[in-house]
């Protein structure tokens, strides 16, 4: 409390100017790494990346390379970390994990990252699903990130709670219940009302995850493909907002705190019965259940269905900042970590879904059923959910819009302190204050 933030922020500004001097001394070291020329590569990841074993394997295969790993606890903090160091002009690791949500900001300064085309990106381009590779390419065609995982969305549901409400519990029947391939949000909310009537309990944990899913599956989200803001007067978006607002007004939201859930208790005590599940969410839920002392008996399961069709939420990239003194070695490490073989191992370790076609195919074949989710065939379900996903353009302020513009408006709905109109107006006001007139 007594530490001067003022000083910190000013020191940061000072560091930025010093960095101009420092960056002149950098320069790539041409001599290749080897046992007699040992080098150290630093890597910064966030959340659950599942890379620990892979680092060791890489070090073994490449004598002379030492990997110093740093893992930030979550995407939001990783963003602050990366932005601070970008602003300061120094301090970034040789390999930095970038999340899809703030990739738009990074793209604004894509020249501060190494063009991976110079290190053979074109040769491995076909490894990835098209849209993932495109996301990591800037408008000038420079490749600044290799995709790690993607977040195709399926629907998690709690079998025990479904049973108590007289709903089917078999995951295939549940998929049918929601409408199978033609599942719509209308059905999703109607089932919620039905569930709420039978049990008096909430249907989903809180509104903003549902909202993220809705927006992510639109052809154009907060921005048009040309990079224009696409919220005010967007009737399609407004219609979805009203749908969600009506559901929340009917008591379908448990008004939980996102990424907190009472330290996971909400997943154990039956507060809500369905949850939007991008592949990586299974890892998050697992963590929550562990912290609340729950296990497979809590009844969670995942169904191969998603309202409104295919949707992708999240996924990451590995980038090499221009400040790296070892861009060639760093790019090689990033390419190795994101190669299909390693993605399979990452997926097993971190419960996420790979972004390369080969790895996806292998996961379908070999991935062990997920015990925590009632032995759900993890690979099969998410491979099926990844079909039809389209890459949506993410603008520079996408994460601000999600967290600072819509989150407060949706919280109004959850708290019951505003109607759909009031909440939407609040979102538009915030948009103008925070983004348009920033």
């Amino acid at each position, binding site marked *: *409390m*007594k*530490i*001067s*933030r*003022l*000083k910190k*922020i*000013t*020191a940061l*500004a*000072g560091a*930025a*100017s010093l960095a101009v001097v420092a960056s002149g001394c950098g320069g790539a070291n041409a001599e290749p790494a080897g046992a007699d020329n040992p080098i150290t590569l630093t890597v910064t990841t966030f959340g659950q990346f599942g890379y620990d074993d892979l680092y060791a394997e890489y070090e073994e295969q490449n004598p002379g390379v030492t990997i110093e790993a740093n893992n930030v606890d979550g995407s*939001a903090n990783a*963003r*602050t970390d990366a*932005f*601070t160091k*970008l*602003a300061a002009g120094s301090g970034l690791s040789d390999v930095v994990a970038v999340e899809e949500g703030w990739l738009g*900001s*990074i793209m*604004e*300064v894509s020249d*501060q990252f190494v063009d991976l085309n110079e290190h053979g990106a074109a040769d491995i381009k076909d490894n990835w699903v098209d849209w993932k590779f495109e996301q990591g390419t800037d408008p000038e065609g420079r490749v600044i990130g290799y995709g790690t995982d993607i977040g195709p969305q399926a629907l998690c549901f709690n079998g025990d709670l479904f049973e108590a409400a007289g709903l089917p519990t078999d995951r295939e029947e549940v998929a049918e219940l929601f409408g199978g391939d033609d599942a719509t949000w209308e059905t999703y909310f109607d089932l919620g009302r039905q569930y709420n009537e039978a049990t008096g309990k909430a249907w989903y944990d809180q509104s903003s995850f549902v909202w993220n899913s809705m927006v992510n599956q639109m052809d154009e989200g907060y921005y048009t493909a040309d990079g224009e803001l696409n919220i005010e007067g967007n009737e399609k978006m407004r219609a979805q907002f009203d749908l969600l607002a009506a559901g929340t007004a009917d008591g379908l939201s448990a*008004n*939980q*705190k*996102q*990424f*907190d859930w*009472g*330290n996971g*208790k*909400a997943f154990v005590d039956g507060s809500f019965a369905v949850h939007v599940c991008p592949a990586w969410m299974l890892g998050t839920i697992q963590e929550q259940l562990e912290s609340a002392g729950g296990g497979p008996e809590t009844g969670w399961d995942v169904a191969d269905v998603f309202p409104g069709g295919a949707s992708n939420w999240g996924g990451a990239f590995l980038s090499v900042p221009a400040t790296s003194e070892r861009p060639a070695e760093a790019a090689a490490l990033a390419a190795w970590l994101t190669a299909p073989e390693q993605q399979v191992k990452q997926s097993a370790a971190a419960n996420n879904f790979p972004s390369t076609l080969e790895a996806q195919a292998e996961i379908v074949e070999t991935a062990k059923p997920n015990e925590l989710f009632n032995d759900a065939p993890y690979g099969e379900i998410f491979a099926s959910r990844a079909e039809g996903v389209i890459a949506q353009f993410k603008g520079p302020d996408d*994460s*601000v819009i999600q*967290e*600072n513009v819509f*989150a*407060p408006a949706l*919280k*109004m709905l959850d*708290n019951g302190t505003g109607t759909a109109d009031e909440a939407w107006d609040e979102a538009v006001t915030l948009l103008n*204050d*925070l*983004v348009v007139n*920033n």
Partner: protein
Amino acid sequence: MTTTLDRPAASSAAITKPRPTFRQRLNVFDVKASPYLYIAPFFILFALVGLFPLGYTFVVSLFDWHLLKGQGEFVGLQNFREVLQDRFFWNSLFNTMSIFLLSTIPQLVVAITIAAVLDQNLRARTFWRMSILLPYIVTPVAVAMIFANMFGEQYGLINNILGAVGIDPVLWMNETLPSHIAIATMVNWRWTGYNALILLAAMQAVPRDVYEAAAIDGARPLRRFFSITLPSIRPTMIFVVITATIGGLQIFTEPKLFDPRTAGGTARQFQTTVLYLWEMAFQRQNFGKAATIAWLLFIIIILFGILNWLISRRIATSGDSRNGGGPARRRRRKRSATPAVVLPAVGPQPPAPAADQPPEPPVETAGRPAGTTPRRGT
């Protein structure tokens, strides 16, 4: 070196005024310059890490400056104009003031009370003193995490207890005043003990014979506390108030970690000014405006500092302001060593209780002097 050419002239001058030897000159230099050299490290460091960033921040605040894209156009005072019209900036100032008042006032009252209790002749004195300092040792991050958990709206300990006695859960994070109380609680928990120790040290410096004299004159413990203890520790109180003010205006960790996903609550219920600065810099990426907020906060803190100084000067000189500024100030410094200042305050008292209740004083003085006014070995 060139003086060697003028040797004849110099030596003739040396007759009237002997030319100082190298040693002598070194001595003069030592006396005149050394003190500055001794303090130079601090000032050089301060200029590097304090003054330069301060100036640089001001430069940044005059530009359109994107966090990642860097320096943009020169906009003059445009950023200041916009921030001063920004409702969120005023909201953050309101929150800061509210949390500041909610933390500082109860904190001081409780700290003085604890200090007064510890000033008594307790058993295991060191144990108690160290115990109240314990919260201060705990890192604020841990404090914030534990308290955020306790103040959870649906699963928090406090709402559970309230629920057990039939009180509706309080929305500790979604409503403004409760959230301020919750954050002020964290601040108080952490700083009360620290301030109590500082005040205790001041209380121990008050000569015990003053208390004895007052007790003999019939002043009861409460009276002695208000008429002797409080006036004597005034300079220390001022110090505590000033540090609490500066700290309170810069509060960041507690509100940030109270809800780590947001920058001070979903609807900025507890977004303090520094937190808003953080949001501006790292979420909205507007470094120019963030620098502006930093400067505005700096100015506000300076204004508070001046206000504090004025008030404290008034308080400190209130006893003898008629004597004029200069001597009064010198006398004030002496006060901390001798209890002269308390005497005028104590002076008029004894007659009053003595006149009101004649039988009391003997009982007081006979029964308690040893217990209430012990002389500390420390």
